[in-house]
């Protein structure tokens, strides 16, 4: 078991290193120069050269990469080209918002998706199954920005039930501030959850159907366990294992979706920071954001692997 854990951790570290390396070189092979975006118009070649030197872009690529990796290992993500402040400070001020949005979307998706999948499997062929399948496929086909704009127009602008963008009303304090936070969170959360819930429900349904046909389920029924206990205690425990992998993978999609959702809803998370940093070609900020998100996604996958390890005796053995 220890070697399994060590292997998973090593793989996570390699994945993060690859993400760092690809991001570093990808940004630098772009046919664009960040110094051009700093001064539009009257920019002398001397000023451009000075900026390149200030940004460290005058050094050979491999030297830049070596310096970056060295600093990264010391926990230094560099200083933003445009904001002139440490990237880590900027990211840490935005990360809680993304964690709140993506984390609660993840929790909501699991809370809704799993029961839907279970009910659809138990009621196979009945109305509930057909409805879940229809909704699941529809959800799978939805595009985050389209859903976001629709929700914003209907529930924000037309009905006025929710605010148009933002994360909190700055005039609120204490409990009122938390209520305002949830009020602002509702629509972006719903946008992400609506798109994510379909795959969960359908995967769970398929897994449950498979498990419900297993001998040990039949045996549990014959031993007089209630259908409720059979389904929720015995079948679900086994059916959820493949869904765990999906959860880890879906977290990456959630983070990606957060870039678009945060932009449309003016939500102040890391996703929106990436959107702005791309426009400004702020390399250190982009690299830092990608490193942070890569670590988040890899860590989440590692956790799901560990949960699977705890739940599945076959992996342990």
């Amino acid at each position, binding site marked *: 078991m220890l070697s399994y854990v060590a292997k998973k951790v090593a793989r996570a570290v390699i994945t993060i290193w690859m993400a760092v390396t690809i991001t570093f070189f990808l940004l630098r092979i772009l046919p664009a120069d960040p110094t051009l975006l700093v001064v539009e118009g009257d920019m002398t070649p001397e000023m451009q050269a000075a900026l390149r030197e200030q940004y460290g872009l005058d050094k050979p690529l491999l030297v830049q990469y070596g310096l970056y990796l060295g600093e990264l290992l010391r926990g230094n993500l560099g200083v933003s080209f445009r904001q*002139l402040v440490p990237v880590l400070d900027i990211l840490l001020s935005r990360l809680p918002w993304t964690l709140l949005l993506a984390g609660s979307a993840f929790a909501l998706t699991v809370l809704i998706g799993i029961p839907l999948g279970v009910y659809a499997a138990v009621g196979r062929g009945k109305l509930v199954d057909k409805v879940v399948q229809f909704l699941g496929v529809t959800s799978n086909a939805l595009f985050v920005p389209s859903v976001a704009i629709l929700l914003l127009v209907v529930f924000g602008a037309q009905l006025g039930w929710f605010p148009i963008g933002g994360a909190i009303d700055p005039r609120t304090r204490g409990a009122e501030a938390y209520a305002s936070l949830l009020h602002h969170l509702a629509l972006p959360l719903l946008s992400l959850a609506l798109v994510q819930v379909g795959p969960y429900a359908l995967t769970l349904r398929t897994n449950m159907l498979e498990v419900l046909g297993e001998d040990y389920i039949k045996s549990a029924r014959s031993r007089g366990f209630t259908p409720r206990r059979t389904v929720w205690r015995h079948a679900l425990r086994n059916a959820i294992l493949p869904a765990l992998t999906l959860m880890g993978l879906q977290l990456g999609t959630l983070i990606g979706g957060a870039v678009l959702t945060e932009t449309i809803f003016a939500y102040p998370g890391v996703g929106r920071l990436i959107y*702005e940093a791309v426009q400004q070609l702020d390399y250190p900020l982009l690299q830092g954001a990608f490193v942070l998100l890569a670590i988040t996604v890899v860590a989440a996958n590692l956790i799901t692997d560990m949960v699977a390890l705890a739940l599945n005796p076959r992996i342990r053995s």
Partner: protein
Amino acid sequence: MKFGAAAVAAAMLALTGCALNEGEPSATGSSTDSAQEVTLRIGTTTDVSNYNPLQSLSKTDNWLLNATYPQLLRLDENAEKVPELASDYYYEDEGRTAVFELRDDFMWSDGTPVTAADVKFSAEAIMQYQLGNVAAKLTWLESIEAPDETTVKFHLSQAYAPFAEGLGFWMRIVPAHIFAEAGDLSEFANDSDWVGSGAYILESATPGQRYVLRANEHYPYAPEGGAAVDVVEYVVYPDINTMILALRNGDIDLMANPVPASAVGSLKSEDKIGLEKVASLGFAHVTYNVTREHLDKPEVRQALSMVVDTDSIITTIMQGDAQEMVGPISPIFGEFDNTGLDAYPYDPAGARALLEDNGYADADKDGFLDGLAFQMVCDQSNANLTRVAEVMRESAGEAGIRIDLACTERNTFLAATKAYDYDLDLSQWGVFDNPMDQLRSTYLSSNPGGINYNQVQDPELDALVNDAAATVDRDAFVKKIKAIDAYVHEQALLTPLYVEDFTFAYRSDRFTGFAPSPSDLLGMVTGYSLSQVTPVN
């Protein structure tokens, strides 16, 4: 499972609770909505990326910092330079010394008077650290003198007619007693404890969310009794459509960004929303790379100018929200507007005839004149220009000229233009505050501003530009600028397309009295404009 999810949500909320403190008044000193205060909420699309006003700034940075730090001169609604911190300016020593007389009633928000020493310090810091695009405007600066608290003299190595106007408009004045303590100003973030002397002083910043500015009670241009708006709050909406919804919903009172042409119609019909139109200080154009074969011939460039139907572009693509332009000088600078110039007529057949008269023929009968195939680059994010590119390609085809479009995302486009890797450059100038700077930067062989996108090396044009630059007499200067305008037009170094009108939207049921200035860099949100605003009822 339910418990686990609830725990995750609770943990997230607790985590975000820490971030909430960013906007708490205890942390920022901000209290934006007490009963007595009038708050004006403005939508912006991007966060502030740099708070150092001596460096080059994005539009959003400019909006906030222009209100906080004064300029010597500001631009009024007619694109004329009028006094702000300076009460007057003039030249001595045959144009080699520019003198600014300062007002004596500007105060920094910490109670220190604004003096000539602050102006001297700001300019010297820009020179020492080569900060931003203002450094290029100080090329001929030899020394600065502050003989008394309200006089600053800039001694130049040679006369340069628009020196005072360019510097006066672009240079922000910073408090010497604060910035002198900051060390290397090229690395000074200036991201807290702002001390300004403009109409509104930045008070708190919550990146990703909002920026709060408070009225400066000492601002001398505010109406008697002080500005009616006590607090200006910029709220960030990265998506312009979300910002429009927020305006309609009343979450904000003004959009700092121009309204996209496609949304103007629907906003017009809303009685609570007012629209204000201002002209641009830039213009859309097609610039020809004269180092490329065939484009070095004026006749080919003239023929290309004849395949651009500017009337139709303004009517259909710009939906009437633009002005026609003939030479390289925008009509917004009324004094320099060369009304005697005639635009090249839209006449693809005539263009073809002109080319055939100059030896071009379609020997291979493919419909295009042999050798006349050009690549035109443009910025894909500018929807108007992308459509212009399509229209121009069609009409150029009628004239026997093949145009291949290379419209790419903005950063790629900028890289291509900076490398002069194009035949035709279809783009839009942002802001030119005076014609002389524009002509120097775009046409001098020495390419001092790095934006001679024609790559033209014309001694005659150089002589005209340099002669005008050194002319201090206003009438003679205007005459010389008009002569250059006519020369460039005749050479067809570029085909001007239009001067865009920007439309700004605000809640007219709540506020009135804005004093807009040309361009989206200034628009409705200059410190001066905001200080004139009054609430309705």
